[in-house]
């Protein structure tokens, strides 16, 4: 019989001795080279963390390979980061360079520290979810390949934190990212009346729609969608597979930028939509990688030292950003939802 409610494995069992000894007594850190953090304790002890990018979706063989490396260079200790990178925890400075060589040899990617782009927080996509408007892992792979030179160096103006969510549920919590890649459906669900009649709970289905776009159609023993009210959120599809929300022709990607969650300097902020749609050009989404690269290069060329994407855009003004980025501005980018009013320019101050 399984033990219920025993909780997670105890973290204390997972800490390397150097962490136990210096627990809560770290004094400062340095970044001796991209991908390597050096944390120094009050005791003078130094811990090197070597950060390695992963596709997040990994096989057990990958994990076992990683364990082999950790055993050899890290006394068997390692961790993952909040962005799904691995950190090899090296307490013996002598093992640092050998480890780096080993990683190089294995083709693993060291980077993601300091002023770099780190792994993209992302989601399931076509691999495992039922409402995706795009794939997750594939887009991430294409974008990270393209931005690789900014992963293994630290030559950006500031950290670049990206997120991807394959539908509006935003499991990638992309809504506060420097650059957010969001899968969007753009057409109302097609109703499979057969499937509905076969056993969908119509009241629950009606209730699932946040905009009240679905109403019962008793005659037909099915439902009707008011297409003017639908915002393609896919909530109804989660309720019933009869509400086919996927649409290969029209599904795709929106780009939002300028969000952050740290409180450093400026308060956390939401990402804002700058491109309402890019096509799902699998397998490598060239329109998406190109659009992102353009924004990143513009930011590099124009931001002040240390300025996150959003801090830069807010300083120069969004109207200026659209000009500089040569991105078309359209009514789709103007908010028309609950908190729209705060986005309207209630000021005579603006740039042309």
């Amino acid at each position, binding site marked *: 019989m399984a033990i219920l409610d025993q909780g997670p494995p105890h973290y204390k069992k997972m800490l390397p001795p150097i962490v136990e000894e210096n627990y809560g007594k770290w004094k400062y850190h340095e970044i001796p080279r991209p991908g390597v953090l050096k944390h120094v304790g009050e005791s003078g002890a130094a811990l090197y963390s070597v950060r390695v990018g992963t596709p997040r979706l990994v096989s057990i063989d990958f994990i076992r390979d990683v364990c082999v490396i950790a055993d050899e260079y890290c006394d068997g200790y390692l961790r993952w980061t909040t962005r799904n990178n691995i950190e090899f925890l090296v307490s013996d400075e002598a093992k640092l360079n050998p480890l780096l060589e080993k990683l190089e040899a294995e083709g693993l990617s060291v980077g993601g520290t300091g002023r770099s782009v780190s792994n993209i927080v992302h989601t399931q996509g076509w691999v495992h979810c039922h409402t995706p408007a795009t794939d997750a892992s594939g887009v991430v792979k294409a974008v990270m390949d393209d931005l690789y030179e900014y992963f293994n160096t630290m030559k950006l103006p500031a950290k670049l934190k990206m997120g991807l969510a394959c539908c*509006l549920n935003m499991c990638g919590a992309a*809504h506060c990212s420097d650059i957010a890649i*969001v899968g*969007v459906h*753009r*057409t109302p669900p097609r109703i499979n009346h057969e499937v509905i009649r076969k056993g969908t709970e119509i009241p629950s289905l009606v209730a699932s729609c946040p905009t009240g776009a679905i109403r019962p159609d008793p005659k037909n023993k099915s439902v009707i969608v008011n297409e003017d009210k639908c*915002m*393609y*959120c896919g909530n109804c599809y989660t309720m019933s597979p009869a509400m086919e929300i996927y649409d*290969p*022709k*029209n599904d*795709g990607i*929106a780009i*939002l930028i*300028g*969000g952050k969650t740290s409180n450093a300097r400026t308060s956390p902020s*939401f*990402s*804002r*939509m*700058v491109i*309402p*749609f890019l*096509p*799902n*050009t699998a397998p490598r989404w060239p329109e998406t990688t190109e659009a992102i690269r353009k924004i990143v290069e513009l930011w590099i060329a124009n931001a002040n030292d240390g300025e996150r994407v959003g801090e830069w855009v*807010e300083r120069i*003004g*969004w*109207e200026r*950003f*659209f000009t500089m980025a040569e991105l078309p*501005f*359209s*009514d*789709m*980018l*103007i*908010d*028309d*939802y609950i*908190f*729209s*009013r*705060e*986005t*309207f*320019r*209630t*000021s*005579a*101050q*603006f*740039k*042309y």
Partner: protein
Amino acid sequence: MTEKNTPLLDELEKGKWPSFVTEIKRAAVKSEAAGELLQVLERSYKERRGHWKHGGIVGVRGYGGGVIGRYVDEPQTYPNVAEFHTVRLLQPSGWFYNTKTLRTVCDIWEKYGSGLTNMHGSTGDIILLGCKTEHIQPIFDEFSEAGFDLGGSGSCLRTPNCCVGPGRCEHACYDTLEACYNITNEFMDELHRPMWPYKSKIKFSGCANDCTSSIARSDCSVIGTWRDTLRIDQDAVKEYAAKIDIKAAVCDKCPTSCLTFNAETQELSVKGEDCTRCMHCINVMPKAIQPGKEKGATILIGGKSTIVQSAFMSWVIIPFMKMEAEDDFAEFKDLMRRIWEWWDEHGKSRERIGETIYRLGMTKFLNGIDVPPVPQMVFRPRANPYVFWNQDDLDRSGTALDGSKL
């Protein structure tokens, strides 16, 4: 009512600021209504509540507004203010007067009314405070004779107003006085005959200092601005440099940090494309800095006070529009017609246009009035992905499975 005792109000004759109680007392010398007003007011002061009632619609032939009906709640006790209506008169642009005109106002009002006025009402009218129903038409007739007309009330265009502008201000970027006069005249029907979901106001300010507070107080705010770069007179800069700390008082407070003062050469320079024309530097150094040459106005929509959906400030819908008397403000008038038409069609009763736009979304509004969206309309783009797609847009952007554009 014979009681002339007003101990509470008398307290308000003390102090240095001019006293409205003194004014009511002066009017009371000639007007029984004003005398009774004093009594009613003293009672309000004692009881801490008003004694006036809304009531039946009053007005003049041919118009649907311009007079506010008001009745005291105890007509038997205060017969002279049983009816005590307010007449709103359109003021001259910028509230400029010659004394002859003012005396005319006084004379007619003395004949029929309480002798009390507000110079001016909060919307801008000359407010004549307190008359009987039977006198409304004669009052209007005589004022009309003398060249006056009624202002707005009800669900109509309200009396527009404007700042002093070119009449006495070096900052004016368009002719606010002429614009207000001309445009008020253009929309006489809209002003005198209520026909919309609710009231609609226009205020004209010559520059971004917005001395009419148009952004907060009117559904349409017309705020003067320029399209090119502000102009700097370096000799005058040097004069100011002798008196003020230009870096601290001007450059450091520029919201876009686009001004640089070179302490050595004593020259001030501007990064023109960064300037958001906030007026600050010009305000501090009017002798040395002036607006650019290509002048006009920004048009903002939606301002109103608190009830129902909260107070709104107007937001940009036309970043730059020429406002020239020469072409009779044609572009502006045309825009206003499209705006009101859209609102008239879509607005609910007692819904100000800002609320209608908020409810239906800027997209519908912009489409409805045929104005193209520009980033100047927003501080920042939407944070949610709830874009509405119509078939046209889909057709332009979808992808076939073979990867070809549809």
